[in-house]
């Protein structure tokens, strides 16, 4: 797909802004003036003043002579530049690449953006209406080159959208000024009767160069798309991206590793320099058959450590299908956070849960397999066994209450209690034996009951009476009876865990 550019022309940029600040000026002709060589000269005139024949460059005294009611306001230098910058930043919602086009315009690189609004016509209409509703008188045009977009926005009379390949046709009827030429060149053209671009477009290059210089040819070629025109984007976007084009398509894992390492080094150097670390990173591989393959990683803490990030990616390199070869690698860090520099210094010496090695290891484990879960438990203020522990939110979270060992707890707890058959002599005495999976376990020693009530505000059901029992072989179990004895239906017993 070819490039598409939009040019926005603010016809009365500074005066519109002044009108916004002072609404009472809306119905009055006024000019912005500044002293030049000791005289007050009009720098900008609003639409009303312009319709009365006043234009920029006039001396204020002359203007006042034939429009006595003219308001004169002091011009602020650099106001236009500031306004354009602010408007450009506002326009980033429409495309990431925006350049200021002094003195009164913006250039937008809209390649691949317009379809998000449902087509270029709607896109253009949306921007123009939004800017007009803000109070700026704008004209906008979309063309395949910056030059043509600029020309059509300012001098175009037909459609504001120039299709790819239609640059020449769009320029033919425009005046030479549409090519952004110097005033003396324009004057010479005027004298020679060249009123439109079309009148000299087909002339031999050597003849044009001799009479009007190189600049005209360059502008013409740029407008027609025969020469590249560059703009300096207002904000380089997206921020943390590194690109690596390859001369020969890369097809081997080693090649991908080398590319990745080089990208990581530049990206991490930049991150480290800014005191930041990445939390997620995406490696995009553009293949020569036009397809895009990508792998992504995430880290548990912000890091700019090349070897660590490389290890995380290395686990996934096998997922890249190079097919005929990869011609461009792009490494992006969509999520970047401030890395704690102090912590970084301590990392090497820290042991235990704060160790960098541990965080990196866990990143590797979770990065390898989708089904991998990493859990750490903290005590919780519940007696109910399943709820007596809770998951820790992070590696550094500290327990808020001490771990209790007042009561015996099994080393293995069944996720779901298994029903058993029990012979018990008298109510609330430990059972004499229990049968589990066809095996009889005569109970020799027992401790209990330990009654654990269900938390009625959380769920309904019976309480549990736990017994810690040991059978004749010395095997130790944690069994419980659900609910009271004495009701008309027999009570169910369960095996819930194994003791050491």
């Amino acid at each position, binding site marked *: 797909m070819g490039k598409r550019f939009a040019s926005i022309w603010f016809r009365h940029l500074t005066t519109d802004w002044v009108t916004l600040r002072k609404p009472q000026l809306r119905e009055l002709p006024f000019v912005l003036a500044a002293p030049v060589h000791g005289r007050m000269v009009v720098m900008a005139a609003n639409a009303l003043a312009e319709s009365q024949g006043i234009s920029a460059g006039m001396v204020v005294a002359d203007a006042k002579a034939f429009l006595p009611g003219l308001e004169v306001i002091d011009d602020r230098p650099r106001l236009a530049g500031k306004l354009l910058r602010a408007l450009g930043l506002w326009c980033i919602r429409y495309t990431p690449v925006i350049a200021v086009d002094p003195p009164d315009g913006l250039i937008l690189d809209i390649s691949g953006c317009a379809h998000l609004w449902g087509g270029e016509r709607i896109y253009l209409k949306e921007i123009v209406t939004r800017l007009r509703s803000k109070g700026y008188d704008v004209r906008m045009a979309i063309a395949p080159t910056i030059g043509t977009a600029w020309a059509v926005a300012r001098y175009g009379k037909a459609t504001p959208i120039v299709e790819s390949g239609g640059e020449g046709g769009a320029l033919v009827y425009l005046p030479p000024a549409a090519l952004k030429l110097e005033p003396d060149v324009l004057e010479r053209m005027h004298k020679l009767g060249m009123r439109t671009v079309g009148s000299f477009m087909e002339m031999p290059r050597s003849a044009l160069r001799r009479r009007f210089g190189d600049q005209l040819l360059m502008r013409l070629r740029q407008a027609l798309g025969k020469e590249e025109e560059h703009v300096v984007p207002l904000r380089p976007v997206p921020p943390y991206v590194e690109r690596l084009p390859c001369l020969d398509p890369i097809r081997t894992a080693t090649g991908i590793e080398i590319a990745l390492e080089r990208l990581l080094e530049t990206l991490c150097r930049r991150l480290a320099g800014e005191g930041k670390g990445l939390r997620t990173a995406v490696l995009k591989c553009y293949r020569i058959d036009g397809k895009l393959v990508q792998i992504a990683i995430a880290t548990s803490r912000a890091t700019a450590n090349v070897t660590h990030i490389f290890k995380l990616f290395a686990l996934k390199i096998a997922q890249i299908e190079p097919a005929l070869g990869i011609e461009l690698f792009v490494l992006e860090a969509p999520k970047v956070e401030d890395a704690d520099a102090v912590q970084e210094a301590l990392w090497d010496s820290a*042991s*235990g*849960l704060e*160790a*960098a*090695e*541990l965080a990196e*290891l*866990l990143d*590797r*484990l979770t990065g*390898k*397999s*989708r*089904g*991998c*879960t*990493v*859990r*750490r*438990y*903290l*005590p919780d203020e519940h007696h109910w*066994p399943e709820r*007596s*522990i809770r998951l*820790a939110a992070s*590696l550094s979270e*500290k*327990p808020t209450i001490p*771990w*209790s*060992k007042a009561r*015996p*707890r*099994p*080393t*293995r*707890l*069944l*996720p779901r209690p298994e029903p058993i058959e029990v012979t018990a002599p008298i109510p609330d005495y430990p059972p004499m034996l229990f049968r589990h999976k066809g095996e009889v376990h005569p109970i*020799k*020693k*027992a*401790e209990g009951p330990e009654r654990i009530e269900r938390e009625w505000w959380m769920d309904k059901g019976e309480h549990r009476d736990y017994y*810690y*029992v*040991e059978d*004749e*072989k*010395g*095997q*130790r*179990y944690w069994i419980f009876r659900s609910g009271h004895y004495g009701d008309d239906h027999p009570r169910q017993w369960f095996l819930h*865990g*194994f*003791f*050491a």
Partner: protein
Amino acid sequence: MMDSKREIVSRLKQDILRLQGFIASESHVASNMGLGPVEDAFPNGTFPRGGVHEFISESREEGATTCGFIGGLLSHLMKTGGVCLWIGTSSTFFPLAAKVFGVEPDRIIFVDMPREREVLWAVEEALKCRGLAAVVAELQEMDFVQSRRLQLAVEKSRVTGLVIRNNPRSIGSTACVARWQIKPLPSVLEEGLPGVGHPRWEVELLKVRNGNAGRWQLGWSESGFVPVPKPAQMDGRSAERIKMG
């Protein structure tokens, strides 16, 4: 003459140990695991920390006692504030129980992998990580090559690897430094007291690299492992002799 020969033999033994990856730790006291007589079975009379230990558990009850015994080992290994990784496919270890064995349960990180092959990979990665005190793995099968990989990883990082093999289908030879089996024994109480006493186990070292296999009885009390006095141990030995006879 005899003395010099004995000297040469013991020096050669040390050399062999060194070549096999046993590095005598600097301080004997630090590596004491409180296992009492069991430690004498190991080369140099110390529990090898930089090694992979294999625990066979043939039932869920044995699995629970193995967890208890490992908890006791962890309490020594994690004394200096280390962290332990517990890797398995679906571990049923109850963290609250770790406290009973003197381990802060929040210093254990549980990692669940969906498949056994990935568990092995994760264990190997974890064993390479110097920042850990110990790695506990719950596996069913492990062949010689896999155990060799783990042992090589450990010899570099000096992390203790403890592999619990739940209901293994086949027990082939492995490169682990020791193969244990921990079976439950009835607890002992003072005459006439109700309840269940402190846990007691029959600890069997089925295989020890460069050491002597054997069988002991150990108990656990609040202060650590408690070796059961000699007569019980003699019983074990004599039982073995009867079996062999």
